[in-house]
């Protein structure tokens, strides 16, 4: 077991060195935060806060430090701080990201600019209105449509699952990593032009249920997205997939759905394999 300890010590040193080389370590940064209460008719302004940081500090940590120590009135939506709940999407230095999943040390420059997501109605400071985004998701009927979907609790003894092989699961699994954070929607140039376009999140979910062998509504799902403001509005900028913090590839889901609409499809399993995020 001393071998393990030697390995740990060696790796600790190596890691410390790598961090020094890769990361930009500062003792403080300037947060530049867009402020406005839209309901009160306020015009937007930027407030700046000098925030002390450590190697592990995320943009969310920095914002909450500013809120708690400098200005209690900063409006921000946040919850899990581990990139699972999807609350803290915002534009950080112009790019849609999760504040909890962006470390200060990853960002260049000594000023970090935080602004609300684009393509969402602005409410206050860093908070936007998600109603339309959620409505697009709901429009996709994002649930298993199958006569046998609801089980009868009185038949508790005669139960079984729908059989699915690991390969069946892989066909839709990566699309079910979606946390509905809205980053893809904010990055989508088509959404910016046409608010009736469902957007990458909703279309990704349409594919997720389309590809699930438990679902029996494939044809309806194709019809649903094939309309004037529908799937063919996408001009494949691919920015949705670039900004997704969970490695979901909505652009791929859109292409696969189009393939089915046009009557051809490639090997979906291979195509839908999750990107190895550690190499990203």
């Amino acid at each position, binding site marked *: 077991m001393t071998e393990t300890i030697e390995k740990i010590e060696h790796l600790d040193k190596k890691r410390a060195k790598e961090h020094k080389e890769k990361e930009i370590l500062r003792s403080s940064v300037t947060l530049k935060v867009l402020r406005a209460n839209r309901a009160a008719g306020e015009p937007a302004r930027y407030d700046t806060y000098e925030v002390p940081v450590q*190697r592990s500090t995320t943009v969310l940590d920095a914002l909450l430090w500013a809120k708690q120590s400098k200005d209690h009135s900063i409006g921000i939506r946040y919850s899990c701080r*581990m990139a699972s709940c999807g609350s803290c999407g915002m534009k950080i230095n112009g790019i849609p990201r999760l504040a909890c999943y962006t470390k200060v040390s990853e960002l260049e420059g000594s000023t970090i600019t935080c602004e609300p997501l684009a393509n969402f109605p602005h409410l206050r400071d860093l908070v936007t209105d998600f109603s339309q985004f959620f409505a697009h998701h709901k429009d996709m009927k994002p649930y298993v449509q199958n006569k046998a979907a609801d089980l009868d609790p009185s038949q508790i003894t005669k139960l079984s699952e729908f059989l699915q092989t*690991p390969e069946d699961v892989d066909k839709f699994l990566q699309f079910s990593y979606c946390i509905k954070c809205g980053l893809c929607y904010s990055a989508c140039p088509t959404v910016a032009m046409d608010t009736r376009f469902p957007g990458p999140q909703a279309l990704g979910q349409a594919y997720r249920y389309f590809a699930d062998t438990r679902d029996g509504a494939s044809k309806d799902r194709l019809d649903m997205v094939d309309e004037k403001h529908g799937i063919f509005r996408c001009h494949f900028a691919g920015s949705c997939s670039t900004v997704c913090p969970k490695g979901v590839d909505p652009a791929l889901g859109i292409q696969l759905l189009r393939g089915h609409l046009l009557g051809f499809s490639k090997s979906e399993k291979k195509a839908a394999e999750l990107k190895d995020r550690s190499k990203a």
Partner: protein
Amino acid sequence: MADAISHDVLIIGSGLAGLRAAISAAAADRSLSVAVLSKVQVMRSHSVSAEGGTAAVLYEEEGDNPESHIYDTIKGSDFLGDQDVAERLVKNMPFEIYQMDHWGMPWSRRKDGRIAQRKFGGYSFPRATFAQDKVGFYLMQTLYDTCLKYDNIHFYNEWFCTSILRDSAFRGVTAIEMKTGDFTVFKAPAGIICTGGAGRIFSFSTYAFSSTPDGLDMAFRAGLALKDMEFVQFHPTGIMPSGILITEGARGEGGYLINNKGERFMSKYAPGKMELAPRDVVSRSMIKEIQEGRGFKHETGFDCMKLDLTHLGAERIKEVLAGIREIGIKFSGVDIIDEPIEVRPVCHYMMGGIHANVDGATELPGLWTAGEAACNSTHGANRLGANSTSECIVWGRITGELAAEHAVAEKTRSSSISQEQVAAEEKRIYDGIFRGAGSVNPYDVRKEMTDTMDAKAYVFRNEEGLSSALKKVRELKAQMWKHVDDKAKEYNTNFTNVMEIDSMLRTAEVVLVGALNRKESRGAHARTDYPVRDDANFLRHTLAYHTPEGPRMDWHPVVFTRYAPVERKY
């Protein structure tokens, strides 16, 4: 005040229990209108962070059986769990697993296409049903999406509930719509509180920032008892400095815990189960190792141990532990494929909650509670991993059905809201908090309180520490921190934060008083000055009732069916 909003069933909280309850109430009678009120957007509740598994007996033909799951749960609870409740949990779980499957849950599969299960701490059979290492997230997504099938489920995203309205029965709640800041009354004959745990009363915590005891405190202020609040689970593997959880599934897959000698030290403390002993046992063992000088020092100054997964191999880790690998790389700077990761015991779960019976019914007619907010005594003094998501969905369904039945029966009866109570609540939150004055920063008070809980009410406790913590919390309560500097009406999280801090202080007090009164060591509550379990005096539940001077304490009997308490060894 705006007009009251009426529904048939009000569900407060939108985690696994709340959403499962919504579906079960809405499906019971399509003419009922079911509302889900959440202080977050409903799909963002802390249940999304559950990682490792959901316990259920699926493979009796391969050697598992319900009796074993029941007994493991009761033994895990250090015999403080109500035995009829454990039985109800176990018997209902297989149905829920298959129902989730039918609703689209991406359970991990075996080669034969059937649902896979993995090992988890304290169980005699691998019965943690899993979907990689994101079980809670997928369950939430499955339930959220399934809710969208029902036109009679109404979501209220970002409505902060402040109080329960009652006479001899439940009548409704008051809430603030965060977007507009409007104070509103909700009326309904039936309610279910599903507001989750309160783990943010500790600084080092796996919980989301939103996991504050608003719902517990609402019930407490409405005269309902909080039960067994001194039992706080410290999960062995939280990473530093954030406290984010590394799932027990990591040890279920074969991970080792090692000390600074490179030893798998669990062989000294639980030779039978090693790293897969229940969480209270593993956490105590880790702290003992640290106290005896066999810990590591993290760069942040924390003492810690290491979790070694390197021997599992890159392929298996990528397949079933991808989420925690991502967490390790991002939040700890460690790739678990290459090297062991630093971990230490972290506040993870509250066994206590709103006093409820085996049906999830509270002491107030018309009001139920489910999930972590509830204490129907499934878990007693210590919860087994993978039994909490199970509890949420089982009692979500049960309470949803019962609330729906009650709402149908009450449909023809008229009731009225006490305007006096509404006025008193407006006064409490607007005069007492929003327009309050003072020079003390409420966020500093919160930090002092949570740091005190970390220092004095952690894995090991004693009289001196608990008394000093109680004194501290009472001092903090009396300081001039009840004021809101943000004067805007719209999306005022400063206002909701201060209301949260108010409820956190009251709840911390209940935890500490309960811990002081329980002069024994049982499950997660370990007293160095009373190191032995004392069944003669303490084989009973703690109850706490609200009074303006502080909690009034009482006791409540444990339900036994077939299992006599024995010494708990692993």
